[in-house]
């Protein structure tokens, strides 16, 4: 439930009204505001014998008022005296006892008034949490694993510490480094949403960095975010906004703090405006002061001190006016090289048996690389929209497969929310930012046989060419082939050469060029910057005026790369294919048909495996094109191809010679771990050797449905488009398409109703298309209500529909009906047309009240099929193990389209 802080009576009334409205039980909590107080968390564990340990203390850099998930956080707590810390520890022990957590972990949050020192408990989560994951990575103490052992009856002193092997788990980790977690936001995806940070968490991912000092960790974390900052600095700030940005925090605030320090604002003033503890401000001041001494001709000592403070080569290059490569060469020539220290739970008191490493600039390295055959796998960095745990799944599976092939695996990643950054997933773990500098340093130390960049999404893919140029062997598909697929011009030429249809397209480096290209192609067009994932800044543009507005924004979104302009295939169906290649053969893992029409980002579409409405001849064409593309690109490992079918033509939209977001989905549907197969290909085993000569099939319908964070972004519209907005996905399985769809919807939080009232409001363009669905709903027994235009149309066509007011037409209007739970299903299609205030209000309220809201006709068709199926069949379940028993793998029955 979202919280809010209010400062005056008027605000209070508005907030209370909204809260009461949102609350299912019409109740709100009103609490003393501890805004601006220092915020701390303790991650604690207790066993059945009442033994109690604190695993980690965490201090929020941002004071109370910003959700801890949206705060920069630091472990261990930095500004507590032992006396204060022990008082907190004692309170935590009393809380976990009193709450009655008999065994397991808890997260207990505290606020401390910086003026009086008064301490209050603000929250207690009697479970593992986002913070416990962070604490596990920060200390090397695996909280969830230990909690599981405690749950089955062990006591802490009976469990061995994996890392030291000789000491028990009944201790409190001692750490001799500083951990900084920085959230990653995605406000660029939700332009309507207010980017200011408050008590409602809005970040979608996070990065963690380890350094020997706060300064070093902070700078490593900021460059690991992949937001264009090479450290504690950004060049695109507006000095006129400093005061505003310090007072009203948003994702850029930390950079504005830097800017204020740059300009000599007193720490005391910044402290008063931000509530950030003076200790942190002093640390940042030290970075700023050192930075001022770095310029052309910087001496070795300063350079070394800069590296100790976490300055990246890229930042030093900017400050000294040379290229990053030159800065790197200079640094190495001066003998300023990183060393690697171990995260060992005990501050080196005992020997560590787990190579869980981080870099720093000191004298002694504890990395101790082995002489084994080894590969290095690059992870996917912080979760963001378009690049989430799907890629981590691939990295982990890749690592397991290489281990099975006898290789030592080295994982590099900086995301604490992942399995890849568990110390026991790979043989060696480097918790480091995924930049060229940081990766190359590890390559030079470890000297792996090759680096795997195809599992971690766009993050490592961007490093393919720089690493290749630096002489690093890239395993799998060649960097040149990757570039061929990524470079629109080269790719377009390849498709032409293969005689594969593609939407007309062009590349534009300026607004003038973009207008020209669009006019040549014909509107509507799909425009986007090159080299992006998740449809970042992608839009469908219907006329020149919109194009102008877009290009201005997009150019700022990706300054180094031009804008791509493609013909938008209206009313087409999209298909995703995941395939494997070994250079000589291509095997298709799965052909997924999108339920929504083209125009909605593939990550935001529901997709069904196998395809349910595609003509067999088109499937043959898709298979053929996939094979030819895979062979032409000499794909070694995974590839993903996106197709669009319009009329009788199959177009290729794009090819990604890497693991895609759908690899886990296809792997679970087929029972074949595609990423493992890909890893074995990279290890030298052909598809044939792996018994993979036939395209894979599935025995049921598997439907993937996205999960959206709209609830967290009041004000944002749930309207889907070419820019991806989902943050997760679910899968529904059944022999019956309708049931599979209903299950997936239910898992995503949208119960498909089997009776009740359906509200239909569609644009003129979709009226004909919605008719059969409206008729079907009427026949099933749904009451139909509709806005004026739609109601008139339906009644004229013989489907009885009751008129309901739009928001501005009177009351009760449609939103009132949603709120009073008088509507159970909403069909509302504004895609590609002007959207009205009404649409936004309807969709927003649908989400808030948990009413299934479909925004495309194809989804409406699937929903009707689901309703029919739910009324006919009982929902059954089976385990994946049952589904993937060898004998059962047969092609499913042909689907019955609506």
């Amino acid at each position, binding site marked *: 439930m979202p919280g809010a802080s209010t400062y005056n009576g008027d605000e209070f009334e508005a907030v209370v009204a909204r809260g009461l409205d949102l609350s299912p039980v019409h109740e709100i909590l009103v609490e003393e505001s501890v805004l601006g107080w220092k915020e701390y968390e303790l991650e604690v564990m207790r066993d059945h014998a009442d033994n109690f340990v604190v695993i980690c203390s965490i201090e929020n850099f941002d004071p109370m008022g910003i959700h801890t998930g949206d705060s920069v956080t630091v472990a261990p707590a930095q500004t*507590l*005296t*032992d006396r204060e810390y022990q008082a907190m520890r004692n309170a935590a022990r009393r809380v976990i006892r009193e709450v009655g957590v008999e065994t397991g972990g808890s997260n207990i949050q505290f606020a401390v008034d910086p003026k009086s020192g008064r301490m209050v408990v603000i929250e207690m989560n009697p479970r593992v949490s986002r913070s416990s994951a962070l604490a596990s990575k920060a200390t090397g103490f695996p909280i969830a694993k230990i909690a599981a052992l405690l749950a089955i009856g062990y006591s802490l*002193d009976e469990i061995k510490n994996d890392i030291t092997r*000789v000491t028990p788990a009944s*201790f*409190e980790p001692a750490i001799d480094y500083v951990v900084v977690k920085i959230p990653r936001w995605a406000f660029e995806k939700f332009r309507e949403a207010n980017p200011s940070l408050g008590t409602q968490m809005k970040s979608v991912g996070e990065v963690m960095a380890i350094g020997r000092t706060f300064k070093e960790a902070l700078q490593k974390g900021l460059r690991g975010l992949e937001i264009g900052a090479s450290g504690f600095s950004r060049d695109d700030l507006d000095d006129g906004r400093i005061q505003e940005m310090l007072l009203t925090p948003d994702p850029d605030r930390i950079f504005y703090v830097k800017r204020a320090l740059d300009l000599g604002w007193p720490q005391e003033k910044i402290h008063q405006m931000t509530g950030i503890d003076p200790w942190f401000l002093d640390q940042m001041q030290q970075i700023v002061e050192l930075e001022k001494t770095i310029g052309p001709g910087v001496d070795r000592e300063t350079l070394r001190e800069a590296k100790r403070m976490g300055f990246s080569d890229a930042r030093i290059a900017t400050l000294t006016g040379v290229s990053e490569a030159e800065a790197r060469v200079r640094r190495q020539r001066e003998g300023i090289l990183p060393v690697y220290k171990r995260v060992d739970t005990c501050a080196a008191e005992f020997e560590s048996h787990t190579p869980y490493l981080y870099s720093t600039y000191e*004298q002694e390295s504890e990395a101790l690389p082995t002489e084994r055959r080894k590969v290095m796998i690059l992870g996917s960095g912080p979760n963001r929209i378009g690049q989430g745990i799907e890629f981590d799944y691939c990295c982990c599976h890749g690592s397991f497969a290489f281990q099975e092939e006898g290789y030592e695996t080295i994982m590099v990643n900086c995301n604490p929310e992942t399995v890849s950054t568990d110390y026991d997933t790979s043989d060696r773990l480097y918790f480091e930012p995924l930049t060229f500098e940081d990766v190359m340093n590890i390559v030079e130390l470890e000297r792996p046989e090759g680096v795997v960049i195809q599992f971690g999404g766009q993050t490592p893919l961007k490093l393919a060419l720089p690493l290749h140029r630096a002489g690093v062997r890239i395993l799998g598909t060649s960097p040149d082939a990757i570039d061929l697929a990524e470079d629109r011009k080269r790719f377009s030429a390849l498709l032409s050469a293969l005689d594969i249809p593609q939407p007309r397209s062009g590349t534009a480096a300026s607004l003038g060029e973009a207008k020209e290209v669009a006019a040549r192609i014909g509107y509507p067009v799909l425009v986007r910057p090159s080299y992006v994932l998740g449809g970042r800044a992608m839009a469908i543009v219907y006329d020149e005026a919109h194009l102008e507005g877009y290009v201005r924004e997009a150019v700022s979104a990706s300054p180094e790369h031009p804008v791509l302009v493609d013909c938008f295939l209206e009313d087409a169906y999209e298909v995703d294919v995941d395939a494997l290649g070994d250079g000589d053969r291509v095997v298709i893992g799965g052909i997924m048909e999108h339920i929504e029409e083209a125009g909605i980002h593939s990550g935001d579409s529901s997709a069904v495996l196998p395809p349910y409405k595609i003509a067999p001849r088109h499937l043959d064409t898709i298979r053929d094109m996939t094979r030819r593309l895979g062979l032409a690109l000499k794909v070694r490992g995974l590839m993903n191809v996106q197709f669009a079918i319009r009329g009788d033509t199959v177009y290729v939209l794009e090819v990604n010679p890497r693991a895609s977001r759908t690899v886990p989905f296809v792997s679970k549907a087929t029972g074949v771990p595609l990423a493992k197969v890909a890893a074995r290909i990279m290890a030298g085993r052909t598809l044939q050797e792996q018994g993979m000569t036939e395209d894979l099939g599935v025995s049921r319908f598997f439907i993937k449905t996205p999960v959206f964070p709209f609830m967290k972004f009041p004000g944002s519209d749930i309207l889907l488009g070419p820019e991806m907005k989902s943050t997760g996905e679910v899968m529904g399985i059944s022999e019956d398409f309708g049931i599979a769809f209903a299950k997936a919807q239910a898992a995503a939080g949208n119960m498909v109703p089997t009776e009740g009232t359906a509200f239909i409001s569609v644009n003129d363009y979709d009226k004909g298309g919605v008719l059969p669905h409206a008729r079907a709903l009427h026949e099933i027994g749904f009451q139909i209500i509709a806005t004026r235009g739609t109601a008139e149309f339906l009644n004229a066509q013989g489907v009885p529909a009751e008129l309901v007011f739009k928001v501005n037409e009177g009351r009760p209007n449609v939103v009132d009906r949603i709120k009073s739970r008088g509507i159970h299903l909403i069909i509302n299609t504004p895609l590609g047309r002007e959207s009205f205030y009404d649409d936004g209000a309807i969709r927003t309220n649908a989400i808030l009240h948990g009413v299934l809201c479909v925004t495309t006709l194809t989804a409406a068709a699937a929903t009707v099929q689901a309703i029919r199926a739910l009324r006919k069949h009982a929902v059954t379940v089976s385990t994946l193990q049952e589904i993937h028993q060898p004998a059962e793998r047969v092609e499913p029955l042909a689907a019955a389209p609506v």
Partner: protein
Amino acid sequence: MIPVRDTRSDVLDSRLVSPRGTAPKLERRPRALLALEDGAFFEGRSFGRLGETAGEVVFNTALCGYQEVLTDPSYQGQIVTMTYPHIGNYGVNREDVESTRPQVATRALTRHLRTHGAKRGVISALTENRDELVDRARASRSMTGLDLAREVTCDKPYRVEAIEGGDGDARSRLGGRTFHVVAYDFGIKRNILRMLSAAGCDITVVPATTSAGEALALEPDGIFLSNGPGDPEPCVYAIEAARELILAKPTFGICLGHQIMGLACGGRTFKLKFGHRGANHPVKNLATGGVAITSQNHGFAVLPELFDDPDLELTHVNLNDGTVEGFRHRGLPAFSVQYHPEASPGPHDSHYLFTQFLKLMDSGEPPRTLPRAHAAGVPPGL
């Protein structure tokens, strides 16, 4: 007349002055060198006073509480490296805590000491002559056989009065009774005095060399043997006193006091490879099976052969290495622990031991006898 000292005035402020702006500019920090007796060197930079000092180099893994550690008399004769890299974050309440603390590669140093054991060393910001420094490290006094308690004990007795209505553990005070405790000062930490006085004890702190007769003449309800630095074996005067005192009065020992009690009961002590210093050591109470997270600072330990004597019972064991952390006498009201139940810095898990001491003084009887089976919990391999 024994003078009264108010320990409350020594209590660290919970909110301290921020160290903001106090860090000197790096380029002005002079170089410093730490040389160990085995010839290892660690380069760093010095801040504060330029100087040179010798001592046994040890490490402490506590994350906070640097001021308490660095002012603890038990570190007499030692150079402490804090493994946590940020020191001084929350300032200090008095300015005269330490002179020189060079920044060195503390983790590398810790790993060296862990592998090779605690070493004598010399830190100098005055010379960079390595051979000279190693020689000086080798020439510096060795911890073994060194009686350091004499150097840090008080000159003459003083009194600390019970805090009326003291908070926290004072609530466990029995029936409002005030006990008189004679505390042997081998380098006593103020927090021990604070805890005893908060629990309702009037304390007479006496010099380490006070004889049993002199102590008993003060008519105490109980005897407390404090923490302190160095090797317990040369403290023959204290061992002899303890031998008499435990027969006469309820006795509670902590750290060096525990080792002295072990020696008084006929045991022996030995030097640990690199000692226990930190705030995260798990100690198992063999009577309850409970594990306390404890604050520790010791380089010597009592050998478990002490428990060949059926009158003595092992009560606490360190779970990291199985060493003796506490014992009691079955027939006498005497017990001791190796670790620091008063914490400061460290967890407050073991404050119950002060209550146990009060109960002994109240009843004058030994604590409930434990079944023999628990004594079998001595881990092998020592």
